[in-house]
């Protein structure tokens, strides 16, 4: 109901303002006719001087060139960033893999390895108790 009343009110407003609207339209019509005639003569001059009035203005061509250049440099910057991120991701993945590998293997102390591998009497290595094991630094 409200929409109907709004449209009705708009209709009354348009009817009251119609003479002014038509006056503005008539003035614009005369202006556009004159504009057309002026553009026609400019078109004729442009035609005989090798140009075309329907073609793009120099500012349009300049703007297109700038926009294309900006798009190219944006694309190049994006490619570089992508490569950087890929490199970083790869190195992070490799570091995580290496850490996982190290965690799986038990770490043996170097002095224990030394003790186990060297034997002056060439005897079979005896069972080593906890007390006999050389005490190194606890890492």
């Amino acid at each position, binding site marked *: 109901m409200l929409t109907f009343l709004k*449209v009705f009110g708009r209709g009354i407003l348009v009817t009251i303002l119609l003479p002014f609207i038509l006056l503005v339209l008539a003035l614009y019509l005369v202006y556009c006719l004159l504009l057309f005639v002026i553009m026609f003569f400019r078109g004729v001059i442009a035609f005989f001087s090798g140009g075309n009035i329907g073609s793009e203005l120099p500012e349009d061509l300049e703007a297109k060139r700038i926009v294309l250049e900006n798009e190219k440099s944006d694309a190049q910057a994006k490619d570089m960033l992508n490569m950087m991120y890929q490199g970083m991701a790869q190195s992070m993945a490799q570091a995580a893999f290496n850490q996982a590998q190290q965690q799986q293997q038990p770490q043996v102390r170097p002095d224990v390895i030394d003790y186990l591998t060297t034997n002056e009497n060439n005897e079979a290595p005896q069972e080593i108790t906890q007390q006999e094991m050389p005490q190194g630094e606890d890492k």
Partner: protein
Amino acid sequence: MILAAIKLSENTKKALIIFFLIFIIIFVLIGYISLAIEAGMKRQGSKADAMLANVVKAELFDSEKKFRRFAIRKNARVFYVESRVPFLIILGCGLAYVLYCLFTAKWGYNPFNKTDGFGTLLYEFSAWPKEKFFGINLISGWPSVVTKPHFEVSAIFSYIIVPALIVGVVWFLIYVLAYISRSIRIGKIARSIYRKKLVADEPTSTSVNH
């Protein structure tokens, strides 16, 4: 009380109801037509965005004045290129009319007249019947038909020229409206891009910290 004191006949009441209904319908129709025209003008105006997109993206102009000058030039070119066809149609109709008058020696021939013009294809009605309601002459019925549409051989020229002229004029008017819509849109774009508004929060009288 005043309305109750006035005695209206059944016919008068019916006529008043019909009159008010027609009154409401006419204004509602005008309202909807204006809404449709406004929507069409907004759609036409949005073409200005496509026209100026590259120039705005490239930030080619550093002032509103230069931007508006370029946009007006561009708008004029677009209007000229668009309206060449309807202008040629109107020009062609004018040329054909001059040639017709030249060959038939009927200078001052009215192609819209009702005897050998386009008026032969239209209904002709008598005057609207009116009756007095409270001292005012109001329409009280439908007019009668005086002439029905009929084909006249002598009016063939007007049957071709008049529709072509109407098409050309309406088409040109549509492009004039499009030019107006784009001009309005250019003004809005220029204001939105080049006029920056900083809204600062001002301390009110009730604020504690001064």
